[in-house]
């Protein structure tokens, strides 16, 4: 328990540091957001409006850096991340919360499926070393070595098209409104199939390979021989003895992968013009939308930290050796 509290304190500190850096970075960049916004409006703004924009972005020149910092924190606690330039005057939090569900649903579900399939196949391939399923390994390794954007483009080129079942871009059809009813959901699922498939193909072999190799390592352990000698069924030895131990390194890898769901899918979403966070970040960078970038970075940072914490907790639960006495 003490260990857990230590970890949480550590992550709180990291979060504080990340948020502070996040606060300073835009202020260190030459030029400021208001100027770039002015450029968008072609200078057709009164000086009053410009002043109020500075106040709005928390960049009013009168305030000291310290009071800006304090205000930044106050706003954060209210969930206020400032205003987006590109979607002006929508607040960043709203823009992000529109994009986040798309990414979480697409990449989140795919990551979980990829992990489950990969680990399952890895267990079998490692346990039945030399069987046909083990022989498939080089093929999956080949697939995972294909650069992702190329795989995505290839999938669009081969499978998507005007008459195809698979749409080539977007999160849902133009003929439905984003409302949680069946036509919308089915359209969303249809649009997510191709990106999901390509993510799956490129990520599953990593899980297979690491699980398979851990299984092979663990299978040589003495306690596996003991389990066989005890007359336990092959299934029980494979699952409760071998896979249970081989899973441990993969679990932490999985938790880290969860952290990258939010941020690590830039290419997928760009290739498929998917309305998720990665695509949003891509557009924000293109449009120099600092508040939006800041907000997205914050979300990514926090999700990586939370995933790390989950990895720690999962490890505590699964590996008794990491638990401390008392």
């Amino acid at each position: 328990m003490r260990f857990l509290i230590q970890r949480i304190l550590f992550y709180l500190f990291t979060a504080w540091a990340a948020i502070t850096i996040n606060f300073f970075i835009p202020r260190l960049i030459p030029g400021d957001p208001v100027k770039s916004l002015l450029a968008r409006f072609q200078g057709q703004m009164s000086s009053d409006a410009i002043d109020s924009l500075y106040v709005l972005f928390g960049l009013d020149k009168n305030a000291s850096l310290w009071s800006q910092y304090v205000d930044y924190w106050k706003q954060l606690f209210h969930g206020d991340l400032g205003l987006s330039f590109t979607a002006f005057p929508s607040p960043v939090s709203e823009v992000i919360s529109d994009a986040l569900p798309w990414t979480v649903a697409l990449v989140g579900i795919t990551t979980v499926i990829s992990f489950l399939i990969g680990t399952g196949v890895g267990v079998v391939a490692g346990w039945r070393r030399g069987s046909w399923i083990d022989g498939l390994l080089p093929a999956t390794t080949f697939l995972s070595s294909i650069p992702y954007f190329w795989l995505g483009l290839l999938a669009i080129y081969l499978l998507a098209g005007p008459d195809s079942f698979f749409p080539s871009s977007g999160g849902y059809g133009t003929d439905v409104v984003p409302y949680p009813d069946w036509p919308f959901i089915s359209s969303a699922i249809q649009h997510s199939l191709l990106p999901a498939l390509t993510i799956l193909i490129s990520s599953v072999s990593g899980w297979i390979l690491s699980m398979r190799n851990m299984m092979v390592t663990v299978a040589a352990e003495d306690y596996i021989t003991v389990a066989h000698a005890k007359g336990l069924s092959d299934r029980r030895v494979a699952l409760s003895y071998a896979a249970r131990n081989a899973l441990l390194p993969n679990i932490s890898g999985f938790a880290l992968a969860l952290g990258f769901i939010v941020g690590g899918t830039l290419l997928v979403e760009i290739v498929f013009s998917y309305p998720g966070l990665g695509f949003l970040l891509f557009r924000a960078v293109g449009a120099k939308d600092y508040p939006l970038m800041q907000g997205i970075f914050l979300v990514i940072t926090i999700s990586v930290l939370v995933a790390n914490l989950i990895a720690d907790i999962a490890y505590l639960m699964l590996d008794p050796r990491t638990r401390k006495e008392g």
Partner: protein
Amino acid sequence: MNEPVLEIKNLNVDYGLGDQAVHAVRDVNLTLHRGEVLGLAGESGSGKSTLAYGLTRLLAPPGVVSGGEVIYHPEQGEPYDVLGLTDRQLQAFRWAETAIVFQGAMNSLNPVHKISTQLTDVLAAHEPQMSSHSRNARAREMLKLVGISADRMDAYPHQLSGGMRQRVMIGMALILQPQVVIMDEPTTALDVVMQRQILGQLIELRERLGFSVIFITHDLSLLVEFSNRIAIMYGGRIVEEAQAATLYKDSLHPYSNGLLSSFPALRGPRRELAGIPGSPPDLKGMPSGCSFHPRCPKAFDPCADNIPVLGRPDTPDGATRTVACWLHPVQQTVG
């Protein structure tokens, strides 16, 4: 004492197949009698552990039993060949009839399961009708038997010392009351004090429960003390077998002599300590004839060309022992 419980007949174990095969165990004939402690000694690579893995069919690939029989005599019913059992029969046979305590005391327990889980899963596999309550009670009883308090049931292996872990393994080996317990260097990883304690406990348990033991070690001094009979292995073959006391006092094979004079006796007159010159043979390129002859101080004409067969020697006590050496012409072969 003379009723056999396990008869190994002409057992051959190879690593690999075909021409590349390395013959790790060759033509081993050995009989374990009821209630007996049979010691199996030899240098590293002499094939003693391979023999144990082979007769329980636990060999990991590329190890294969390439010939022979392992006849097991159950308490009731007809004897059968362990090597001929189906997978299902083998699963039922394992641990219930022949349990094994392995070399690595530290790594024999699954690190992620509690001691209790690992004790009771044997019961769940072999006696599925047993209630979980009585399984736990039995596990606690076994721990008590090997001198570990029952509150360690919920401990994980890493919370126990090496000695405790090996005692848990011994308790686990006895949980189904097998007739044969194979000990493969059970105390090698432990300090000498713990060694003695655990072996003493084991012998006491054997007297109480009446199982037979095959005790594999390279430490002949331990065997002299704890076993009834000793078989010496060299280069995959049994080279001598005799009562422990007989072997200690009057070994016939020069290799046994060498083993015996390479450790000091605690009591008795001072003896010159001498190792065995040379190193164990390479199993890939065995010397012709007697595989010990290049290292043997007493080698003479026939040794280099002909393999001596294991048989009863022409000594006065020849009826109770066997040896494979040209110095002791065989009266009657075994197996």
